């Protein structure tokens, strides 16, 4: 009996042949060819590889359009990095003007999110009873699930009037960096809280007990034992928070104002917390929301900004991931 016919007959979709296959010990040695499973395997492999194509797509799109931007003859890399203002109409492309506004909003966000996020995390991990934690954590998740455009609305209609009420209408402009930054801090708070809480909860219990045994108070144990032990996870949380603040768009688009600030020279107005300044993300959204023709310098410039933004967040994410990995190695 030759093998191919044997396999061929067994492959016939009939219950009789299937039963025969079970009885015939010889055929079970050979693996039945299953073209459908191979196809499925290829599809699954394609799904896995698609994420790499996404990354390559992002790099290619940002890189090639940014290259066109620098080849346009209107701007070179030195000017891109040092010019005081970003004004496409005047053919001035100083990315640092946009970056400075991004740094300002991020700074304000961190002023809110780091102390409050860490404080809340310490409360949840060290002080709260299980029942309290079971109530508080889902509430914080609600805060994390609110769309950013809603936070933008909140910044413009709540935080800005609040700041203007406190510091005076003349000091605080309608669109200002501080309001956008502070609300961004509230937005990031749940991320930092939950990541830091995970880091603190992962600190082994015996470290705390050893500290109590040496007659340290609860606070001393937290500040001198638990926090240092969970530090890498906490720092990773901070960096993820910073990365989210840098890439955040709708809050700054609505509340931080339209129009890049001027970094130096006459009328320099960057680093003014109560004045308007456009961030990288804010500028991209404003320009692309209007009439935008392909192959214009405006269109290409968006990708140059996008590339800068992408590099910022990529570096931050890589740092945070390497810290988290090291932290995992210690405690697992």
């Amino acid at each position, binding site marked *: 009996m030759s093998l191919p016919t044997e396999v061929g007959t067994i492959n016939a979709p009939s219950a009789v042949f299937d039963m025969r296959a079970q009885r015939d010990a010889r055929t079970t040695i050979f693996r039945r060819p*299953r073209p459908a499973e191979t196809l499925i395997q290829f599809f699954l492999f394609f799904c896995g590889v698609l994420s790499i194509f996404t990354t390559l797509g992002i790099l290619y799109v940002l890189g090639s359009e940014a290259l066109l931007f620098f080849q346009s003859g209107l701007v070179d890399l030195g000017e891109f990095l040092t010019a005081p203002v970003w004004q496409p109409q005047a053919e001035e492309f100083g990315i640092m003007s946009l970056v400075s506004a991004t740094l300002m909003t991020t700074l304000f966000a961190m002023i809110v999110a780091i102390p409050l996020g860490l404080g809340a995390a310490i409360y949840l991990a060290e002080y709260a009873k299980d029942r309290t934690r079971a109530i508080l954590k889902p509430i914080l998740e609600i805060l994390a699930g*609110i769309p950013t455009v809603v936070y933008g609305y909140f910044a413009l209609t709540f935080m800005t009037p609040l700041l203007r009420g406190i510091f005076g209408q003349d000091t605080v402009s309608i669109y200002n960096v501080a309001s956008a930054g502070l609300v961004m801090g509230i937005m990031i708070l749940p991320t930092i809280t939950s990541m830091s809480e995970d880091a603190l909860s992962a600190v082994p219990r015996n470290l705390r007990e050893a500290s109590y045994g040496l007659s340290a108070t609860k606070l001393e144990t937290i500040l001198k034992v638990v926090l240092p032990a969970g530090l890498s996870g906490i720092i990773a949380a901070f960096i993820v928070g910073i990365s989210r603040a840098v890439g955040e768009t709708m809050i700054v688009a609505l509340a931080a104002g339209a129009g890049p600030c001027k970094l130096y020279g006459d009328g320099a107005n960057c680093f003014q917390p109560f004045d308007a300044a456009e961030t990288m993300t804010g500028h991209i959204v404003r320009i*692309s929301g209007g009439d935008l023709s392909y192959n214009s310098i405006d269109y290409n410039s968006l990708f140059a900004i996008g590339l800068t933004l992408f590099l910022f967040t990529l570096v931050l994410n890589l740092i945070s991931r390497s810290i988290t990995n090291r932290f995992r190695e210690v405690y697992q």
Partner: protein
Amino acid sequence: MSAMTTPAPENKPYMPDEAAFRRGLAGRHRRGRVWKIFFILSIVMALLSLVALFLNVVNSAAGLIIVEYNVDPADVVPNGDIDAASPEQLAAAIVAYEPNRALVMIRDNLSSVASDQFSTATISQQLGSYTYPESAADKTPRDLTPEERSAILAQNISVDVMKQFIIDEIVGLNVLETYSLYESIFNRAAVEEHFAAEFDQETTRLEFRMWLRPSFLTSGQSSDPVLAGIRTALIGTLWIVAITVLVAFPIGVGAAIYLEEYASLFGNENTLSGKFMKWFNRFIETNVRNLAGVPSIIYGLLGLAIFVRAASDFTSGKFLGVTDSNGRTILSASLTMALLILPVIIINAQEAIRAIQSSIREASYGLGATKWQTIWNQVLPAAMPGILTGTILGMSRAIGETAPLVIVGASTAIFVDPSSPFSSFTALPIQIYQWTARPQAEFRAIAAAAIIVLLVLLLVLNASAIFLRQYFRRKLQA
């Protein structure tokens, strides 16, 4: 662990005496209490922000307004409620107040003859494809009785158009001032005083308006905040989310299955190709996690360059013969969103699959099932609750994300409901963004109303996630 061992200062004895220890202890406990208050305050601040955010939205979504009328709406339609009026009532109002404009509406919207023949041709010649009363068939437009005119309007002209006409041309509803809910309740006297002193009582009126009302959900876009609604945006959002999930769910789950179930199978680790595959699979994992951290606006730029521009023949539907659109379509937006939420779905699905005990797989293999039969019949059903949770998390993101949609869609005014993946679109978050960006308080008010709809949508979605998880869990246990 250098921080753990705090050596005693050199100028003090290593152990304090009893009295000093007690003195110090009180101070240490006091410090502990002060810090604990700070920790509690942190979480209270977070909760207060959440409360402030919700109250702030609700505060704007209803309140007193001062409106100006040319004609009292109560004279035009019953009870003065234009939103609740039937098509017949709206048509009758138009014919009663503007009989000639009613004819113009018929001419511009319905008539099929050239405009210079409009007054001489009969209704049956002009309105071939529309419905009209039998009695009107042989009459020219000018001879129509008011009843016939309003019947033709009511049967053929859309309610939105008639409402718009009544409000713009007859009633002339014009919002002059808008107050928040707080002012309307606790400061009503001052508002009334202001209204009595500054405004003409004949033509203006102070009334309470719920900006979030049934007609807000059912009317389309409008440049007038009184008429504007979110129907178009809501339909756009539903289209986008549906296609996004349709694309992202199979690919995301597929990638997770590949990474969890197949990745370790390729080759053995001692061969070069085996080593390469191991490195490659780890690279995919790292890459997915990095993609999860890429700002959404970058995905918007990717979608703009790839889907809107480079693949415009596909995303505009040109390859299917659709001619009336460019690449800025629902399909482009959905594909962009699908890429955006893929990492979320993959990471959650991976965790769900990883949590399935290997005994289930081994039992299945032991019964003679193939790899795929095991995955399809055992692993996936058991992992479904976790996979669905991740998918719904991704859907929530797709509903709320604004920046990529603004970049991909960009269109400001969409007056036609999207009807296919190749339609241009607006979406709920885009609408909120555009209304919030307007300086007038009325637009802020309808933005708040739209935010409530968006949040309710997210709430329903998350509630259904919890429900589905329970359902699948129970099914598994049964």
